[in-house]
């Protein structure tokens, strides 16, 4: 199982990084999304995941990590998910505005050939 | 006044039952809570709804649900055969079903029913709301299908949503 | 392990297969509605998985998740379809 989680993290991260390095805002946003999945899984993995032991206390079951999975990384991931969402929202809107104001969806706000012709004075 | 305080009694009832069902506990506290929600939730929902469903006679409704459950099961088997069989045997086509129902809630219910019963998926309601476009997975006689739908489902629905 | 447990496990595998089939359609397309349909189906299969998983562990903690998928899982479908139809989601 650890192997599966680790490879999943690896694939997500690699894909995310590849997209992050693209030149279009939308691709970058996709990349960030994939990367944050990878991150969330990584944090989650820090709790040494197990199957079928959600950290919701039940009567008569000893309150130890043998019976419940580590709740702390879960809480951290929750926070991370929410923050990632907030950041995605902002990025998306900036991308919209960039496209509207600068008429391109290149991450640098100008097509590379424009820049070569002479950018800022 | 009643409309402002209790916009829709069926909705209130639904919420009431829903809460108790979900809480799985009929303690006084939960009943109070359920009552409170049964009053508040429709009020809140009313801010978003233009019109609530007006119900006619409900007796036909239970019969309809029963019939529906049976139809779903039986017809699913048909679909299973059709899907698993060779595709070349399928004779799919679109059929426009003329509607007698005018109540939008009724039309909605009919659409759902048609979709849930196998062999048909409702695809579009014409803009004038007089026809419903249905896709049949396999039928040789569209007119028979139209007739069956109108008789089996539309008629009882017209009673519930007059 | 009871016979029911075995049945549940087998069931989970069957539903898993269904998910893989949906995945195939999702990746294959060819049209946007096809992919939307595949995603929608994935969501519905997920409910079955959750329920069976809950049965297997004899726990209720997955109820909320299943409920949410059943209740709101169609949001993606709604939004995507509306986009295909109109481009503008909120009109």
């Amino acid at each position, binding site marked *: 199982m650890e192997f599966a989680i680790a490879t999943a993290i690896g694939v997500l991260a690699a894909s995310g990084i590849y997209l992050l390095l693209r030149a279009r805002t939308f691709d970058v946003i996709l990349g960030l999304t994939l990367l944050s999945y990878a991150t969330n899984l990584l944090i989650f993995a820090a709790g040494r995941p197990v199957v079928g032991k959600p950290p919701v206390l039940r009567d008569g079951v000893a309150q130890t990590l043998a019976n419940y999975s580590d709740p702390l990384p879960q809480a951290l991931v929750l926070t991370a998910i929410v923050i990632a969402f907030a950041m995605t929202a902002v990025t998306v809107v900036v991308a919209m505005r960039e496209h509207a104001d600068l008429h391109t969806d290149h991450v640098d706000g100008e097509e590379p050939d424009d820049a070569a012709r002479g950018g800022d004075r | 006044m009643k409309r402002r305080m209790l916009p829709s009694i069926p909705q209130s009832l639904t919420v009431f039952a829903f809460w108790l069902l979900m809480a799985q506990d009929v303690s006084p506290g939960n009943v109070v809570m359920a009552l409170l929600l049964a009053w508040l939730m429709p009020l809140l929902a009313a801010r978003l709804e233009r019109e609530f469903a007006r119900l006619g006679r409900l007796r036909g409704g239970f019969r309809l649900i029963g019939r529906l459950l049976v139809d779903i099961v039986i017809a699913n088997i048909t679909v299973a055969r059709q899907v698993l069989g060779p595709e070349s045997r399928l004779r799919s086509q679109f059929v426009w079903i003329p509607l007698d129902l005018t109540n939008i809630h009724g039309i909605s219910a009919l659409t759902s029913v048609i979709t849930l019963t196998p062999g048909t998926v409702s*695809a579009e309601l014409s803009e004038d709301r007089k026809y419903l476009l249905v896709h049949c997975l396999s039928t040789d006689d569209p007119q028979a299908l139209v007739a069956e739908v109108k008789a089996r489902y539309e008629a009882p629905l017209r009673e519930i949503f007059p | 392990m009871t016979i029911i447990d075995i049945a549940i496990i087998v069931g989970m595998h069957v539903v898993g297969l269904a998910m893989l089939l949906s995945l195939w359609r999702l990746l294959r397309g060819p*049209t946007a509605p096809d992919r939307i349909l595949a995603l929608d189906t994935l969501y519905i299969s997920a409910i079955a998985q959750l329920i069976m998983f809950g049965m297997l562990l004899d726990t209720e903690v997955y*109820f909320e998740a299943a409920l949410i998928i059943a209740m709101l899982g169609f949001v993606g479908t709604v939004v995507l379809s509306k986009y295909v139809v109109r481009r503008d989601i909120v009109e």
Partner: protein
Amino acid sequence: MSTVFEIVVIFLLAVGCFFTLLGGVAMVKLSDFFRRVHGPAKASTLGVGCVLFASIIYHWVNGSGVHPREILITVFLFLTAPISAHLMSRAALSLMDDRPPHPDRTPDADEKVVDREDPAPPERQ
């Protein structure tokens, strides 16, 4: 647990899983969107419904108590599945080359081919 219940639960599970799988098969096997949509739109819905009933019975009998609220899942599913199907059909229709003409009207002459992968309105192409 009594055998009767075992049989009922297993039967429901079997039916449920079968139909769920059927939905998947329909999606892969059939050649056209409107044919494919039949599978998930109800086979899967029914399948999940069956599994849910199996679960209710199982929990009820198996000791952890009656959980009738799982019915709610079915209710929601039956409420939302048609919406999904309806909207997806609308989407597919809007991309069709030859939409079924409105029975009161003659078909438009200027309908053109559209990119189904990522649709754009005809007038832009």
